């Protein structure tokens, strides 16, 4: 099973990549996806997480094929 992972804005620069794929066998939550995708970097405490373009918290389990995104606080408008 696998999920697509995206990093935006300052987190993309911190992690050093815009997107990646995480393959897994046992159920993962969003926070565990971060660990694998970032190479075990600490997740900044203000990180926002989305699964399939909806906000979720980091304990949310992911499903095969999901798109998981990580980004800093939003600053639009």
């Amino acid at each position, binding site marked *: 099973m696998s999920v697509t992972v995206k990093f935006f804005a300052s987190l993309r620069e911190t992690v050093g990549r815009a997107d990646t794929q995480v393959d897994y066998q046992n159920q993962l939550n969003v926070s565990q996806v971060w660990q694998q995708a970032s190479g075990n970097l600490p997740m900044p405490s203000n990180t926002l997480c*989305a699964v399939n373009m*909806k906000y979720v918290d980091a304990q949310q389990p992911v499903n095969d094929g999901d798109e998981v995104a990580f*980004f800093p*606080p939003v*600053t*639009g*408008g």
Partner: protein
Amino acid sequence: MIEIRNQAFDPWQETQAYQNSHIAAGKYGATASFVGTMRDFNEGDNVQKMVLEHYPGMTENYLNKICDEAKNRWDIMDCLIIHRVGDIMPDDPIVLTAVWSAHRAAAFDACRYLMEELKSRAPFWKKESLPEGERWVDKNTAG
């Protein structure tokens, strides 16, 4: 309607054009609008340029969601949101929100709601170019 633009836009022309094509003449009495424009200063520093990043797909979904929520909460006829992305120069419009309704209270309330929701939750990120280098804007101020 919501739209993401990667080119400069004129918020007043857009408002008028949308009104002419989408809002029934004679039925609306109130139009409240807000335009956010790029300043050449932020937190005491000169800002020469800005890059606005978004999350294609999620950003559009989120803007549509806050328009739908505004229509559920207030008696309004329609909303328009246009948001710029990409390279932005000082004095460029960044965002337009406009709301049409029969009476003014709903238009005022909904227009402000759209902006507060957009600024607190819609996935956009600003990176400023200062004389001494670039920096990510770390958070929006409360409205």
